[in-house]
């Protein structure tokens, strides 16, 4: 698969994400503008941040008149989970990817692009990841602009209903995997249980919502890695590329492609 093909495939894989971002970004634009920000500031935030939870929280603090340090620290804490995702992607990314490509694709790491790309078997190509962020960026910015401009026109009942859109997308991402794998199901259960403990036990009330997510993620992933370690098999393509000669890589390629297309049929990422 050449690079242009990988880029096109990334764009295709990003379409559902971009569409899914529309209502969420719409909500963001709406909330930011109704809170008193000009539409162009809301658009600028979406353009430069490309994240949901972090920019929602940061914008709330801006509107509340918080200081620079508070805005920066809160946003950072919420976004720390991207370090785990970025680290995980660095394991799956083709090793030949240059620094400029890495810096570009890093901008597009979100919960959804990460899940979509990390569920893709085999080595990840930089053009695929860069293609993958195109539609989400368009959706995120278009949604923000629309929400900012149209906020006065939306009936209130629909506004409140749209709040669930982001979570419904998260559910759509985890449920199929949980259905297929008991290990994934347990990891999700531990993550949710941990977050609930931290949220509802008064002892832990000093922990911010961003840290709750981080702690629950680390605890649940560690639990999964301890109780259900993955087979040593999962990175055959990466192993081959790393140590071995080009011939060996070429031999393994068709196999990987076959497995890839088969698995793609099985899990319904492009399924609507």
């Amino acid at each position, binding site marked *: 698969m050449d690079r242009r093909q990988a880029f096109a495939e990334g764009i295709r894989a990003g379409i559902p994400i971009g569409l899914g971002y529309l209502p969420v970004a719409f909500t963001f634009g709406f909330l930011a503008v109704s809170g008193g920000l000009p539409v162009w500031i809301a658009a600028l935030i979406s353009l430069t941040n490309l994240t949901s939870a972090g920019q929602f929280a940061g914008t709330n603090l801006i509107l509340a008149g918080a200081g620079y340090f508070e*805005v920066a620290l809160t946003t950072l804490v919420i976004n720390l989970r991207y370090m785990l995702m970025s680290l995980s992607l660095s394991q799956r990314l083709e*090793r030949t990817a240059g620094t400029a490509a890495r810096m570009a694709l890093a*901008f597009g790491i979100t919960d959804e692009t990460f899940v979509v790309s*990390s569920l893709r078997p085999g080595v990840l190509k930089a053009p695929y990841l860069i293609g993958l962020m195109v539609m989400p960026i368009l959706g995120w910015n278009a949604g923000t602009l629309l929400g900012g401009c149209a906020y006065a026109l939306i009936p209130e*009942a629909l506004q409140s209903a749209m709040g669930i859109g982001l979570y419904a997308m998260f559910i759509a991402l985890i449920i199929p995997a949980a259905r297929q794998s008991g290990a994934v199901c347990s*990891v999700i259960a531990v993550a949710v249980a941990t977050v609930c403990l931290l949220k509802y036990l008064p002892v832990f009330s000093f922990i911010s919502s961003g840290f709750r997510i981080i702690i629950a*993620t680390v605890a649940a992933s560690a639990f999964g890695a301890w109780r259900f370690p993955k087979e040593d098999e999962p990175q055959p393509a990466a192993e081959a590329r790393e140590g071995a000669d080009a011939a060996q890589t070429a031999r393994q390629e068709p196999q990987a492609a076959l497995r890839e297309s088969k698995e793609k049929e099985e899990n319904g990422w492009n399924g609507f």
Partner: protein
Amino acid sequence: MERILICVALMALVTYLPRVLPVTLFRRPIRSRFIRSFLDYTPYAVLGALTFPDVFGSTGHLYSAVGGTLAAIWLGYRGKGLLAVAVAAIAAVYVLELIGGAL
């Protein structure tokens, strides 16, 4: 306005740094089976922790949020795509709020 622009720049910076540093600086493959498994489970753990229990407070009322969540779980279980699930959940919440408002 200047304060707002500085805040936006700070937000952009602290959003980009966690994304860019690991993938640019950390290029060696990880050998440890534990760490590789850990990283494989991370997306599910993050999304689970982000979704529950906060989803139940994401709409005007608990009952509509529960209804929307059940709709999303049901459609997700049947393998529907992201947008279909999101639209169905929003529609479910909207209808439930309408019914709740009428009662």
